């Protein structure tokens, strides 16, 4: 029996979510329609509202309702430091630490050669432009320590240094409270390689 057209459209739309295949999408659709119609209405309104209101901040590229986001506009942030992260979730993690008072730039991705994600797909060009505002003194690269995150950091660093900027990379090594006995070998090897004068 064919599904009603609107149900089919909904199931198809839900498949836009990452990791959701046809079966999960159908389960979600039936749940929303049968068990949680209020939730469905909130979801619909929330999506419409977010799509309408949220844009990329002109300065940091993160999502913002205003042309320049609150963090970038705040006079309490140190505009001499610019920390580069892959995703907004990474920015949130750094903010939770309360260890950093500078500004951010969110690439919204990473260079991933084997997935065809190059400099055009992430905000590398915008980062260069942003870092050359004349106020930034240090660019801190906080991309992930994955092969892709490392490649991104390397090329960002080359491009920024060629424009006379000071570039640093966040440190990697043993985690806080880490004991050699319990840390994985790769981390120990990198910590040895990245050792510093004590």
């Amino acid at each position, binding site marked *: 029996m064919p599904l009603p057209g609107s149900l089919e459209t909904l199931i198809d739309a839900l498949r836009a979510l990452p990791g959701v295949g046809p079966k999960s999408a159908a389960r979600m659709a039936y749940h929303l329609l049968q068990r949680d119609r209020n939730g469905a209405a909130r979801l619909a309104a929330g999506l419409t509202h977010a799509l309408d209101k949220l844009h990329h901040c002109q300065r940091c590229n993160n999502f913002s309702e205003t042309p320049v986001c609150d963090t970038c506009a705040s006079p309490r942030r140190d505009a001499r430091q610019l920390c580069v992260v892959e995703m907004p979730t990474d920015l949130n993690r750094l903010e939770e630490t309360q260890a950093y008072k500078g500004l951010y730039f969110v690439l919204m991705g990473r260079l991933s*050669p*084997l997935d065809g994600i190059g400099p055009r797909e992430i905000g590398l060009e915008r980062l*260069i432009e942003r870092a050359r505002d004349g106020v930034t003194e240090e660019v801190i690269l906080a991309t992930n320590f*994955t092969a892709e995150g490392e*490649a991104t950091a*390397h090329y960002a660093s080359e491009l920024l240094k060629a424009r006379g900027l000071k570039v640093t990379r966040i440190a990697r090594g043993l985690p806080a409270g880490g004991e050699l006995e319990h840390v994985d070998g790769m981390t120990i090897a990198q910590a040895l390689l990245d050792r510093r004068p004590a």
Partner: protein
Amino acid sequence: MSERVDGDPAFVLHTRPWRETSLIVDIFSRHHGRLGLVARGARRAGAAVKARLIPFQPLTLSWFGRGQLRTLHAAEWQGGGLMLRGHALMCGFYLNELLLRLLPEGDAHETLFDHYTLALADLNSRPEVEPVLRRFELDLLTELGYAQSLGHLASGGVIDPEARYGYEIGAGVIPPNRAAGYSGRALLALAAGDFSQPNTLAEGKLLMRALLAHYLGDKPLATRQLLIDLQRL
């Protein structure tokens, strides 16, 4: 029949997300060649295995299952391989892309596995990447039967270092034709694995590029395109 493999030496070539919490891991293993494995739950918070499933690291992997349903169940780091850095890292991605594009699934290529292991070590330790790349390209094409001997003519004749030659895909070195592109000296050096002369590298690059272009087909290499795009910034 379901297979069970324990502790095969292997490298991760690439990973991509699969479903909610899993990864599909493309590997190059010593005894089973290129395969795709599912690492179930590898993307869950706190899953220790994800940190080990990164490219260019010598691992031993264990899996079971068959066809598209092979499941990874253990990954151990073998030590020694440090993360490639800078431009060498991009060259590592290039090697992986060649393997992903050209190696047929499930064919063991133990000699090539050794060549790949050596190429990664060389990328890590040598300042010049070009000889490493040319050597691996030639090893890969030879292992797959795509490169004919460069040490003698396709007809069996001797190559004169002072003469110039053509190369016909599928046949090998041929007498000079209209587009006689390669010097005898460079061809003999390539055949001997001697990459010390700049001209060997330059002509080797042209020859490898022509061969790779033929076997890769219309789809360009993403790693090469990425470097071109970066240079425009």
